[in-house]
């Protein structure tokens, strides 16, 4: 092949994107790692000679900090309860929408998707009002049902469920669409064959829909988990991590340590530990899926 003279024009096309990614993404991530090995804080911001390199010191302090483990527990609660709940609602919504008898499908699809498009800060504020123990929408619902209204955001037991409810409401539309796409790729003849074999609705779902939906399902689980592990805006706006640190998430902890108290070194360590958690969890999910698919096949 003839050797091109000068710069390969492909680089002109990918150059800007790669340059921006390198400078504004890769660079800071690496710098963050270096930062996590120091005790960079407000004192050091003023005078650099007040900086100390402490190696794994931040990580050790992190792992010994009850506050960090509180954040991990809260985030895990959110992911392990909110994740499956969110996915289940999305799947149900998709199945309902996919039914051939449904009328006004595009309208319904838009309506169900609308919460996804809204600004999280705005809806968090609205939901904060909805959660008001006396004047909120849910309080009204409770009184209609004859139940004492719950102090959603003030009760340590109910605060995280309140956040989960908001997250599910906000996000179910997105995965609903993904599932819809997956459902629509199920070949109709498979259903025909199953019906001819005398299979009812549930067996059809189990043996035709689910297997075809498996890769979509795997994708949804992985992306939802990664997204939910990064919980931040809801507790930031609604509860500031309270009550009694019951809605303190890992990213919220990182934000507070980094941007409120300026313990930049420590906060960077928190961020990297989160990254490690995401890697481990994602890896585990991919592995599980491989094992599961091998069993099914």
């Amino acid at each position: 092949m003839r050797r091109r003279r000068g710069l390969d024009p492909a680089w002109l096309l990918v150059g800007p994107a790669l340059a921006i990614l390198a400078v504004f993404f890769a660079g800071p991530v690496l710098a963050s790692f270096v930062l996590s090995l120091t005790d960079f804080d407000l004192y050091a911001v003023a005078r650099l000679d007040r900086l100390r390199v402490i190696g794994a010191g931040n990580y050790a302090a992190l792992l010994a900090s009850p506050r960090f483990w509180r954040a991990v527990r809260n985030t895990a609660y959110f992911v392990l309860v909110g994740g499956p709940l969110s996915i289940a609602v999305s799947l149900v919504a998709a199945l309902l929408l996919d039914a051939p008898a449904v009328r006004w499908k595009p309208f319904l699809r838009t309506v169900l998707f609308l919460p996804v498009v809204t600004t999280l800060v705005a809806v968090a504020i609205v939901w904060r009002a909805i959660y008001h123990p006396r004047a909120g929408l849910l309080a009204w619902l409770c009184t209609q049902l004859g139940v004492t209204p719950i102090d959603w955001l003030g009760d340590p037991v109910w605060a995280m469920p309140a956040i989960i409810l908001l997250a599910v409401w906000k996000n179910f539309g997105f995965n609903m669409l993904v599932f819809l796409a997956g459902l629509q790729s199920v070949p109709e003849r498979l259903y025909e064959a199953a019906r001819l074999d005398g299979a009812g609705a549930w067996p059809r779902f189990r043996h035709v829909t689910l297997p075809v939906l498996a890769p979509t399902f795997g994708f949804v689980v992985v992306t939802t988990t990664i997204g939910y592990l990064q919980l931040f805006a809801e507790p930031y706006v609604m509860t500031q991590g309270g009550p009694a640190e019951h809605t303190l998430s890992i990213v919220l902890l990182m934000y507070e340590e980094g941007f409120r108290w300026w313990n930049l070194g420590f906060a960077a360590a928190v961020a990297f530990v989160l990254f490690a958690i995401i890697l481990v969890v994602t890896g585990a999910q991919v592995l599980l899926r491989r094992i599961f698919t091998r069993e099914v096949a």
Partner: protein
Amino acid sequence: MSGSGVAAALLLLVASGVASATSPVELRVWGMGREGEVLRDLVAVFEEAHPGVRVRVQQIPWSAAHEKLLTAFVGGALPDVIQVGNTWIPELVALDAVLPVDDQIATIRDDFFPGILDTNVLDGRTWGVPWYADTRILFYRHDLTAAAGVDGPPATWAEWLAALERMQRSAGPGHSPILLPLREWQTPVILALQRGATLLRDEATRGDFASPPARTAFDFYLDLFRRGLARRDAATQVTNVYQDFAAGRFTFYVTGPWNLGELARRLPPALEDAWRTAPMPSPAPGVPGVSLAGGASLVVSRSTTEPALAGALVAHLTDIPMLCRLYDLAGDLPARSSAWNGCPIARDGRDEERTAAFWTQLQAVRATPKIPEWERIATRLTHHLELAVRGDVTLDVALAALDRDVDAILEKRRWLRAREAE
């Protein structure tokens, strides 16, 4: 240079000269909360007195102010003059972010309330000019207490407890005699200071929250919750304090002078006379019932390009007429005692009474430890106290954990001091 080149250079010179003569010098000021809204009015007179100077005011909500301040410092975006809570001054000094103002206030030092001025003094130098004084005192629904047979505002902790219990008995369920938001550190700290606790030891390098005086104070605080006199309301609930006060959902509230104006504005006219103020009750008769030396100061940031002008603006804003105007517009109490006589603070009898309680209290105020880490320590205090209030841990466990947290927070300070000592 060619002829046209010289002409061009001359033109540029003239143009720049004209530009600098006509383009206004801009001073940026940050005001927090209500004062931020009011500042625009206060700087108008300054702008008239200094033609060619434009003062740009930005209003920052208190809830985000501390974050914004530090973010701006790190980002190099601090304004010229900043209103800061005086508990933040040690932080700004540690960051080397502000200029000393000793020269500026040399002639008027004695006019400031000593406890208030003290919060601005570190290492023998003064770093901020006190603007308004803030302290916390009791606000209460006088009509409800009178109806319950409580005889006048409580002067001691014992009387206070008795009054609260009286209210609890008479007002029935759904009423909490005192509102104590768990997110506010001021009340428990006031109680501790009243008991003579220092909160930190070893030159403010270690926590001392478990010391006997502090423990006694926090136990009293916890007791209020244990007896059901205060509800475990978290600040996360959208508690409309004013609606609840008007509805009589609580009787007593420990809060500051800004609520003089807010209550007057937000309460329905029928309740105009229904509330009063009183200085903080003291632990025992004969012991002063001190309160926090709070308030805000005006500081000049070190990064300002117009230090003299910024200093002049600060002098203007802390001048007696402006302090009077600040009181008029925002209800903030002047930090200079002569202003209390100089301007008509509180015109009619009822207002007079309410403000008089603040005057009394301001004679007995104490500063919190003047270190940069105080804000962070105060947050940990509210957290551990909240756990104790909710019954998750005993008070002793909470205070021990708090001291551990505080020791960890202050580790860097210890290291720096050890290094400087070498």
